[in-house]
């Protein structure tokens, strides 16, 4: 039981990493090898850090518009809610959505235990075709001009596919372009409401979280399909308002991490950096032991994030929005340069241009996800 201390340490580290804009837990995993922990302690530490990281990464995505691979789409509805003065609510509903999917992942685990090893090979074969349908649907449900964004994003996706350049790609599409528009339009933040100002009922939240779990149970085990793509697919299944969409995306981010651990134990596939790390020390640990760590660390991360939400939004409120936007813009550029180099900056410039173009054409920014979807289709076919 002394190993529970490692769970707390993991939660602490994960929360810190998530709060730093542009930071991803995958950047830190190589250093975990240097820790002289036992296998058991590493399981506690890595799983707890990964779960806490997902929860706290909602803060920079919503407040600063700095996405990672998974929170790319959170930036848009989050930004809208921040401008309306509902930053606190946006964070709270994201956290609640995240916690609900952890709860719902339990019945799904029972299903996976029985059917995943049998169904997995079949689902894997039809995924490219499902993505083609999604792509066609994306085009048909938007203005005709969306083809420009689909094509440009796909080209950029192909050009960057063999490099680890997701950060500049997604920062430009969803983060930097949004911040530039806000900055140039002189948009100002309404006074922030410091209480839960949500019209979402618990049943609404539960239904959306269940959809997250369900969609992720289909796509979460398939290679190269990120949680953002699942969020994009979800938005075409049902119409969501900003708040609902944020819950869907947050839930998908969290459940993706949960399922990545399930995939390692059930079908021996790695779907996240953390799962890759654990696969090296994985022996025959029980899936229910892993579920226990997930539940405990998610609950702890949720409670700490809940406590952090008010002070962080208050801090945000005190800042001048235009200055903050400018600061965020500089920060995104600096993080991209530091992590992706000069070529990353070039990609950031291209993806920001496409993001701005989609805004001026009046088409949905979600079409930029073609940068991930199209290369994925080509690879899988």
């Amino acid at each position, binding site marked *: *039981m002394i*190993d*529970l201390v490692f769970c707390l340490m993991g939660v602490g580290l994960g929360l810190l990493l998530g709060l730093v804009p542009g930071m991803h837990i995958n950047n830190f995993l190589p250093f975990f090898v240097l820790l*002289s922990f*036992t*296998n*058991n302690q590493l399981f506690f530490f890595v799983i707890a850090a990964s779960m806490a990281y997902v929860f706290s990464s909602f803060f920079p995505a919503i407040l600063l518009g700095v996405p990672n691979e998974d929170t790319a789409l959170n930036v848009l509805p989050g930004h809208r809610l921040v401008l309306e003065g509902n930053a606190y609510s946006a964070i*709270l509903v994201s956290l*609640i959505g995240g*916690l*609900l999917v*952890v*709860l719902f992942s339990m019945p799904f685990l029972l299903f996976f235990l029985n059917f995943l090893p049998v169904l997995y090979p079949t689902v894997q074969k039809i995924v490219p075709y499902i993505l083609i349908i999604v792509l066609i649907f994306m085009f048909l449900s938007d203005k005709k001009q969306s083809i420009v964004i689909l094509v440009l994003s796909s080209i950029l996706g192909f050009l960057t596919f063999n490099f680890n350049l997701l950060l500049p790609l997604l920062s430009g599409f969803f983060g930097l372009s949004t911040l530039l528009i806000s900055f140039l339009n002189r948009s100002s933040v309404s006074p922030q409401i410091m209480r*839960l100002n*949500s019209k979402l*009922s*618990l049943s609404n939240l539960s239904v959306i979280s269940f959809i997250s779990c369900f969609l992720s149970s289909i796509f979460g085990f398939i290679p190269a399909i990120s949680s953002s793509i699942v969020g994009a697919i979800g938005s075409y299944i049902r119409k969501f308002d900003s708040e609902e969409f944020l819950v869907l995306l947050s839930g998908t981010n969290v459940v993706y991490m949960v399922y990545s651990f399930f995939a390692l134990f059930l079908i021996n596939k790695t779907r996240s950096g953390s799962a890759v790390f654990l696969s090296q020390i994985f*022996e025959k*640990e*029980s899936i*229910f*032991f892993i*579920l*226990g*760590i*997930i*539940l*405990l*660390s*998610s*609950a*702890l991360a*949720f*409670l700490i994030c*809940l406590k952090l939400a008010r002070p962080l939004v208050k801090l945000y409120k005190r800042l001048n929005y235009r200055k903050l936007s400018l600061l965020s813009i500089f920060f995104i550029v600096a993080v991209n340069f530091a992590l992706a180099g000069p070529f990353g900056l070039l990609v950031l410039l291209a993806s920001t241009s496409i993001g701005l173009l989609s805004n001026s054409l009046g088409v949905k920014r979600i079409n930029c996800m073609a940068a991930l979807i199209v290369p994925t289709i080509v690879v899988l076919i």
Partner: protein
Amino acid sequence: MHLVFLKRLPLLLALFGLILIYLFSPSQQNTATSINQVRKSCSGPVAIEGVIERISYSSNGNLIAELNQNGSKILVFLENGLFDEGQNLSVFGKASKFSNQCWIFPDRVEYR
């Protein structure tokens, strides 16, 4: 309604998580306690205690301890050289046959 939910659900999840960790923790699964028992099956999780009789290095540089428990002996792979001959060692890990001998590959080692 949300606020009630915010307080209770995480606590319930944490409690359930703790129960699962307690019930399914690998150290709870380490049931075999005597070296004789371990040597018979030489598989699966084990938890044994004994005195380090001899520490040696294998041909490829691995540190190996010979553990003695009331005359019964077994070989344990050690990750570091923090142990001395004559020390009492508690080993939690997996037993496995290798080169016609029964070995213990520890997850956790405690010494006194």
